[in-house]
């Protein structure tokens, strides 16, 4: 149990997927203009990423094995696209309210590099099934945390009086850099 807790804390803070691994920057920059949308995107990603992490482990271990390893990238991306599609249908049937909140973000998740990156890292680091699940969950929670924090900052940046050439993406990048510096403070917390 302690191991899993460590994986969770490690992936949320120390090896944060956005700040330390630099994955999933696309939604991080693209969907962080408003706090509400950031929260929606965060939850949608958490859901898909945890499922994708587990499913890709099963595919890699039982379907691809050692013979078909060269199909890994191909099959992972197809699995992720499938899971996103399945999640969309499932949420629409079971909870129209949730669908209204998350619906528009779901298709975007397919091209989130974090969602493909975590399953690939799972393979690289030889995680087992439960470890993969926790790694996916932790990564996604870390992503949500950073996305929501960043969105809150960007809402304030909108109103701030920054020099003209800095406006837009440039100041956002520099803010993200400062945030990444702050997250470096967590390094050494575990391992």
């Amino acid at each position, binding site marked *: 149990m302690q191991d899993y807790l460590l994986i969770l804390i490690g992936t949320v803070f120390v090896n944060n997927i956005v*700040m*330390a*691994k*630099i*994955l*999933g*920057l*696309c*939604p991080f*920059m*693209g969907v962080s203009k408003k706090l509400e949308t950031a929260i929606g995107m965060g939850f949608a990603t958490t859901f898909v990423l945890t499922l994708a992490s587990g499913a890709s482990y099963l595919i890699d271990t039982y379907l691809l094995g050692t013979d078909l390893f*060269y*199909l*890994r*990238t*191909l099959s992972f*991306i*197809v699995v992720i*696209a499938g899971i996103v599609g399945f999640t969309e249908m499932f949420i629409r049937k079971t909870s129209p309210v949730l669908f209204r909140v998350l619906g528009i973000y779901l298709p975007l998740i*397919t*091209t*989130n*590099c974090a*969602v*493909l*990156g975590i399953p*690939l*890292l799972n393979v*690289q680091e030889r995680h087992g099934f439960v470890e993969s699940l926790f790694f996916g969950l932790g990564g996604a929670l870390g992503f949500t945390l950073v996305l929501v924090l960043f969105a809150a900052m960007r809402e304030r940046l909108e109103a701030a009086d920054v020099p*003209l*050439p*800095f*406006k*837009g*993406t*440039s*100041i*956002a*990048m*520099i803010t*993200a*850099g*400062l945030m*990444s*510096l702050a997250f*470096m403070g967590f390094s050494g917390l575990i391992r």
Partner: protein
Amino acid sequence: MALPGQQELTHLEEFMEGVWKQNPVFVMVLGMCPTLAVSVSAVNALAMGLATTFVLLGSTLLVSLMRKAVPKEVRIATYIVIIATFVTVVDYLIAAISLELYEALGAFIQLIVVNCIILGRAEAHASKNPPLRAATNALGMGLGFCIGLFALGAVREILGAGKLFGVALFGPDFQPWVVMVLPPGGFFVLGGWLLLFNWLRRRQGGALKPAEGHVHG
């Protein structure tokens, strides 16, 4: 990309589109994950740029050739499978050429699949244009991406390690600015480049629209 009613671009213009006017790194701010993660040194950045160009060229060519055969409903899925195939090829190619480079780039070679530049080009350009035009545009975009990556990688290597292509530039007393080769440095340097481009654009009289609102992975 030629809009309807717009005059057709010549091949040179089509090529320059990606290199300058719609540079994927500086103007469109696409494909940031590999851009920031891999650009810790000039060599890594160039290798990543070339790998992406290869995938971009191969997949846009194939997408363009198949543009009339692929039904509209399954086009995105088809593009992704095509791109993933080329990525697998380049993945094993790099592993065969240099294991050291392969380890430095890590999972980011496989992550070329989800690089928006490629899917974006396939959807917005190659699916509507003949192969030669698509390939020209893809080459331009690829070169633009290489230039962007190199600009980032070179600055980060010079500031963060005092080297360029592994050759020490300054004397032994140089104190490396270590943060520059760590993740925050990537954000700072890209922010700096965007700032420079914004500034230049404003000085030109704001003829081009700022890059805002175009940001995707």
